[in-house]
């Protein structure tokens, strides 16, 4: 801006008020505002609001500071929050293992809930779709952005498949899975050796909203399940458990840091 007659953008006006302009830009902005009193008045109003907000927020921050407001308290709360669901989930898991072993019990009138249902749904997805050589996924690796959009839409929250190339797995794609607990999503990965692995993701329905990672095993699949902030995860393959643990930890790290 060399003359004050050049039009300035809304962005520039905000940047001026918030102090993001360099000295030269500031100077020409001041010239422009002097020549355009209506804009100047609007901007002056914004500046007043900025100052008032800063003062008010500082005052509010100081009022009634709670005594035990510290990280240690948060850490305590974290462990106490986890304790109950963990035990509950453990007993449900036991029920699942028994159910899977005796076959028909799982199909009885009482359906499984919570993290145990995530475990069975993840295993089922792996069993049915990972074995499918013709059409295991609805969206391939080249349609990843569509997959992410669709999955996020169906599950009502942003969900993207983690990059597991460091663990030796590449993404084959994904699909929506119908479950008793609403829409779930399956991301299918494959290792260089052709081992397929399912990452199943589904919103939790009020039970086990934050459940610790635990191993799950059926006759032909094994893996880990956990939940975080109301989203359940199941990482399952046909490989032995031990090999998956590190991958599961990585997935958990990635999936909880992206939100």
């Amino acid at each position, binding site marked *: 801006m060399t003359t004050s007659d050049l039009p300035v953008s809304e962005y520039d006006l905000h940047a001026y008020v918030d102090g993001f302009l360099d000295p030269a830009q500031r100077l020409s902005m001041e010239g422009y505002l002097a020549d355009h009193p209506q804009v100047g008045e609007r901007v002056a109003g914004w500046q007043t609001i900025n100052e*008032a907000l800063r003062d008010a*927020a500082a005052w509010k921050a100081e009022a009634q500071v709670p005594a035990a407001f510290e990280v240690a308290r948060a850490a305590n709360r974290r462990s106490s929050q986890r304790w109950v669901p963990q035990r509950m989930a453990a007993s449900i898991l036991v029920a699942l293992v028994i159910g899977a072993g005796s076959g028909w019990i799982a199909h009885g009138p009482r359906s499984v809930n919570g993290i145990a249902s995530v475990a069975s749904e993840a295993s089922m997805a792996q069993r049915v779709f990972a074995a499918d050589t013709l059409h295991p996924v609805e969206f391939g690796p080249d349609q990843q952005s569509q997959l992410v959009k669709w999955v996020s839409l169906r599950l009502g929250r942003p969900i993207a498949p983690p990059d597991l190339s460091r663990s030796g797995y590449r993404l084959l794609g994904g699909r929506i899975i119908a479950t008793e607990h609403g829409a779930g999503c399956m991301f299918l990965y494959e290792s260089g050796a052709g081992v397929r692995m399912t990452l199943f993701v589904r919103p939790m329905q009020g039970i086990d909203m934050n459940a610790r990672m635990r191993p799950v095993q059926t006759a032909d699949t094994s893996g880990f399940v956990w939940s975080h902030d109301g989203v359940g995860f199941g990482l399952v393959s046909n490989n032995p458990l031990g090999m998956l643990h590190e991958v599961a930890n990585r997935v958990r790290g990635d999936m909880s840091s992206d939100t």
Partner: protein
Amino acid sequence: MPAAVSKLEENIPSLRRYARSLLRNVADADDLVQDCLVRALDRMDTLRTEGDLRPWLFTIMHNVFVNRWRRMTLSARFFSNRGDADVAVAPSQEDKLQFQDVLRALDTLPEEQREVLLLVAVEGFQYGEVARMLDVPIGTVMSRLSRGRDKMGHFMQGRERPMLRRVK
């Protein structure tokens, strides 16, 4: 980890300042900060950057707010008369009355505009940083800022004029 925790603690005052302006209700705001700290602690090991924790913490705060708190506060607001609650806090000093006024103006904004305005004007984040935190395009940040500022301006002008006359 202890170093990281103390870094976390350094940021509590600004998290609290933000939460309290966003939610108004002090108890709710402090709970929001606690929830944010819990999640931050959970993710300490996933944090790779050694630099400034603030943007990361405010991103977590935003997500906790959106996922859990927004729904709760909306329903709470529906059933409670916040005007009465504000009056119940008797302003003892003139400057506090002034704060009540700007905070009430802030209250008239939709939450997404309030968030953006506080993050920029009070917390001093760059527009790009705010866009990343809220996971929206920068144009959205700018338009929320414009609408929020203009709406607050109108509200405060409407309220200030009679007050100024009274003072004079």
